[in-house]
Structures are given as structure tokens and as C-alpha cells.
């Protein structure tokens, strides 16, 4: 057996929370590993434009912000491990993280910053037509629907933001929302309402996504009249919230009823030495700025924990 690489702190997830935890841990003189299976940035990386992260009055693309955060963490010595945490075992005064590649690493403290993944609608056609018109990533797939009619499902920040992005490419964008008003930030709503290509289908739930080899329509139901209709669209972009990526610690730390990790005010979980930061944590607001704040607290608290071991 080759020696298992040992770190002071292992950070699971390379989104804004994980990259910030890497930055703070590195600056604190700790040996830090950031484990990320995809690209640095997590969900942020597939956001076309971010307008609510302080310091960027002109807005910044999620890709650029993620690159900058990674560069800053790397500058202070954080090491990046391109892999996924598959299992975590608690050892005396340390944790053993087994990765998907079967490689392992050991750390004295963990910061779980694994974020969340998009929820699905769970309607007929959604799974079958994935990649054939059903998408959860407008910046990835929007270009395939140039000059076509598409629908966006959802009413939060992501849904409205991506509807605006798609309106720049597509002929029309219909936002289908189950309520009669949006949850998205006021400023985003104003931009969407002013955009002539975007229309709103209020109080409608999605019944099915229809099509053969490609999406041909979105079947929706009016919640008051119970009447169904089919919107003739070739693309359906789904932004109906998120599920926490907490499976890897589900048997180790306390989760709430929705699977989010419960923490104390220093962001330690119910397991001493395991901290949580960002979207994976139970909290009211899930924003990049909040993830970054979480991570600073979690990294500093983890350092104190290590010093007292």
C-alpha cells in the first residue's frame, strides 16, 4: 500500500464555499486539499452572469468568478484533487476519505462544502428526453435552441436569470411557474418583465414533457381550472430548486428532514471535526456571498479544532 496522503484539512467540494475554505485554510498555514469531481466553481460555473456578488458592480460570469476563486486558493497553497468523496470513516483524531478512484486521503478535520444539485420535476418524459430538449444548464445547452421556442420551469432567481439569458438566443421563452408571482429578486423580475421575448404562464404545474426523439411540447395544467394545455416548445429548462449533496456524510452527521446538514454557530456538525459550509448546510438563504462567509467561519473554526486536538 502506498502511503495515504495526509492533510490538516480536507474540503469536500470545489464551489465558492470549498474554494474559500481552501483559501482561508491555506492562509492559516494548514495543508489543505479541495476535492472536486467536476470543474472548480460548482453550480456557480454554469451561471452566465452574477450580479449580486459584492465587488463586481458590472457583474461577472460564473466561470470567471470560479477561476478567480480557484487561483486565489491555489496561491495560498490549497491542493486540488480531481475526484469525488465516496466514503468517509472517522478515525481517532482524523478522518479517512475514500475517493471514487479508490485513492484515499487522510485529514484531521473536514469541511463539507459539497453544495446541492438541481431538483428534477419527476414528470413523464423528463428522464427520457434528457439531452433531447430537457436541460438543467442553459449556458451549456442554450445554443442548441437558437431561434426556437423554449420554456423555463420555475420562479426563483435561477429560473428568471436563465430565462433572460435564453431570451438572447431563442425566439420566445415561456416561464412556467406554479404560483402567481415570482420568488426571484425584484431587479431580476424587472429585467424579465421588460424583455419582449419572455412571457409568463402563471399558476401552472407541469404534467409531462412530450416528444419522441426530441422535445415537442410541455404539457401544463392550470391549477384553478384544472385544464391542461400543451406549450409547443423544443426545449425545456428546469430550475425548480436543489437537493443537498449530503449523502457521503448522512450516517456521520445530523441532517434535517430535507437532507441539509445541521451545524452550530461555528458551523461544526454533530460530529466533532466535521464542519459544513455553503448550500449543503441548513439555512435560510443560499447565495454565493453566504457560501463564502460560511467557508471563512468553517475554515477558522476547523483550524481551532485542529490546534486543540
Amino acid at each position, binding site marked *: 500500500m502506498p502511503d495515504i496522503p495526509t492533510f490538516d484539512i480536507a474540503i469536500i467540494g470545489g464551489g465558492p464555499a470549498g474554494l474559500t475554505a481552501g483559501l482561508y485554510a491555506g492562509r492559516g498555514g494548514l495543508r489543505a486539499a479541495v476535492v472536486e469531481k467536476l470543474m472548480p466553481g460548482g453550480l456557480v460555473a454554469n451561471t452566465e452572469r452574477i450580479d449580486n456578488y459584492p465587488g463586481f458592480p458590472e457583474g461577472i460570469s460564473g466561470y470567471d468568478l470560479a477561476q478567480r476563486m480557484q487561483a486565489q486558493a491555489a496561491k495560498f497553497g490549497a491542493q486540488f484533487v*480531481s475526484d469525488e468523496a465516496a466514503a468517509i470513516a472517522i478515525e481517532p483524531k482524523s478522518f479517512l476519505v475514500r475517493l471514487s*478512484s479508490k485513492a484515499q486521503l487522510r485529514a484531521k478535520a473536514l469541511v463539507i462544502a459539497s453544495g446541492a444539485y438541481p431538483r428534477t420535476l419527476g414528470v413523464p418524459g423528463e428522464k427520457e428526453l434528457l439531452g433531447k430538449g430537457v*436541460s438543467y444548464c442553459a449556458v451549456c445547452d442554450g445554443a442548441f435552441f437558437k431561434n426556437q421556442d423554449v420554456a423555463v420551469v420555475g420562479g426563483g432567481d435561477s429560473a428568471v436569470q436563465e430565462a433572460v439569458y435564453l431570451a438572447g438566443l431563442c425566439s420566445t421563452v415561456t416561464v412556467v411557474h406554479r404560483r402567481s408571482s415570482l420568488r426571484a429578486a425584484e431587479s431580476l423580475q424587472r429585467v424579465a418583465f421588460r424583455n419582449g421575448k419572455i412571457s409568463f404562464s402563471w399558476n401552472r404545474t407541469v404534467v409531462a414533457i412530450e416528444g419522441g426523439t426530441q422535445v415537442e411540447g410541455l404539457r401544463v395544467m392550470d391549477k384553478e381550472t384544472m385544464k391542461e394545455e400543451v406549450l409547443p416548445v423544443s*426545449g425545456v429548462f428546469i430550475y425548480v430548486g436543489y437537493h443537498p449533496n449530503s449523502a457521503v456524510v448522512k450516517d456521520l452527521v445530523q441532517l434535517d428532514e430535507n437532507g441539509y446538514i445541521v451545524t452550530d454557530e461555528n458551523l461544526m456538525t454533530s460530529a466533532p471535526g466535521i464542519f459544513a459550509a455553503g448550500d449543503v448546510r441548513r439555512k435560510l438563504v443560499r447565495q454565493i456571498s453566504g457560501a463564502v462567509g460560511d467557508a471563512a467561519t468553517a475554515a477558522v473554526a476547523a483550524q481551532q479544532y485542529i490546534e486543540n486536538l
Partner: protein
Amino acid sequence: MPLLKDEDQKYLRAEFARKLTGPVKIVFFTQAQDCMFCQPTEQIIRELLPLSDKLSLETHAFAPGSEEATRYGIDKIPAIVLVGAKDYGVRFYGIPAGFEFSTLVADIIDVSRGETSFSPEARDKVRAIAKPVDIQVFVSPTCPYCPPAVRLAHMAAIENGLVTAAMVESTEFPHLAHQYNVAGVPRTIFNGTVSLEGAAPEALFIEKLLEAAR
């Protein structure tokens, strides 16, 4: 204006110095006119070249059916072939920009070393494939889920001489995207018949690869 910032160059130079073991020849097929992404692709390559003395460039003006195009099986441009100790069958069609730049860098390292980061089980399964498999991974430069899909395909090519694998930038080759019903990326096509949606884990990728090799 250079694409790579000073600090990126510094980082890549150190990364290449630490990880490149053998030479890598970048074979680039291009055309002076009527190829929107050829010049920007060349700029990316030219900025990479000085970062390691193990890197070299061989440029060919693309002519369908020419000796070089036939040797490397190139039928569209811009095309990049990475040749290490041998031609492993690693191809890029279209610009390796945005998220795909990281794929190009990781591939250069693997091709130089002639080894990949597959798990031992996956590596054994790929090496045991005894029939030709050609993999096309459709991507867009703005897709953060795409690089892992391209990497798996290129790693399979490096591990087995019967496997060839290409990144295909969907927006530059709309006819291919249309032919293979690509309406979302990444979409991986094995031998033109078996397909895989999204950034699949290693095990699922191997399963589909073996299905195509049966």
C-alpha cells in the same frame, strides 16, 4: 492580446515541468480562410508551446484526403492531434476553449506520460477491449460538465490502441450535432450507435464503452 495571463502561464509552466515526462507533438490541421475558429485555436496552441520544451507543433494546411489528413483520419477543422510516444487516437475538433482548455492541458500531461488516472478496474476493462471503438464527445465551451466526459473518452484512447476519441465542439459542427441528435451536452457517442448523456461516472462510461465494443 494574449489569452493566457502571466499567472496562468507561470502555473502551467510549473505544472508541465513537474508532470511531463516524454515529448508531446501537437499536430494541428487548419486553413487560412473560411474557418472561423482556426485562428483562435492556433493562438491557444501557440501560447502553450513556450511553456515546456517537451511540446512541439506540426501545422498542416487542411486538405481533405491529403496524406497527413488521411494518416490522422482528419475530416474537419480546426483539428488537434496529440502525439506522445505514439498517436494514441486523441483528437479535438473545434476550439478547446473555455472549460475545454483544462481538458487539453490534462490530456497533454497524460499523453506525455502514456498513462491515465483510471481506477485499476476500469483500466483493466479498457485494455481488454479487442474491437475498434470510436468515441465522439459533443461539448460546448461554456459547459462545466463537459470536460470530465471528454477526459474519460481520451483516457480510454490512451489506454487502448483500438479506441479513438474526439472532442467535438457542437456549435462549430452543427451538421454532426444534428446527425447525432445533440440537444444537450455533454453527449458521448460510441461507434455512432451507443450514446451516453451528461457527465457520467467512470463505471457507467466503461459500461457503455464495453457495450459498443461487443
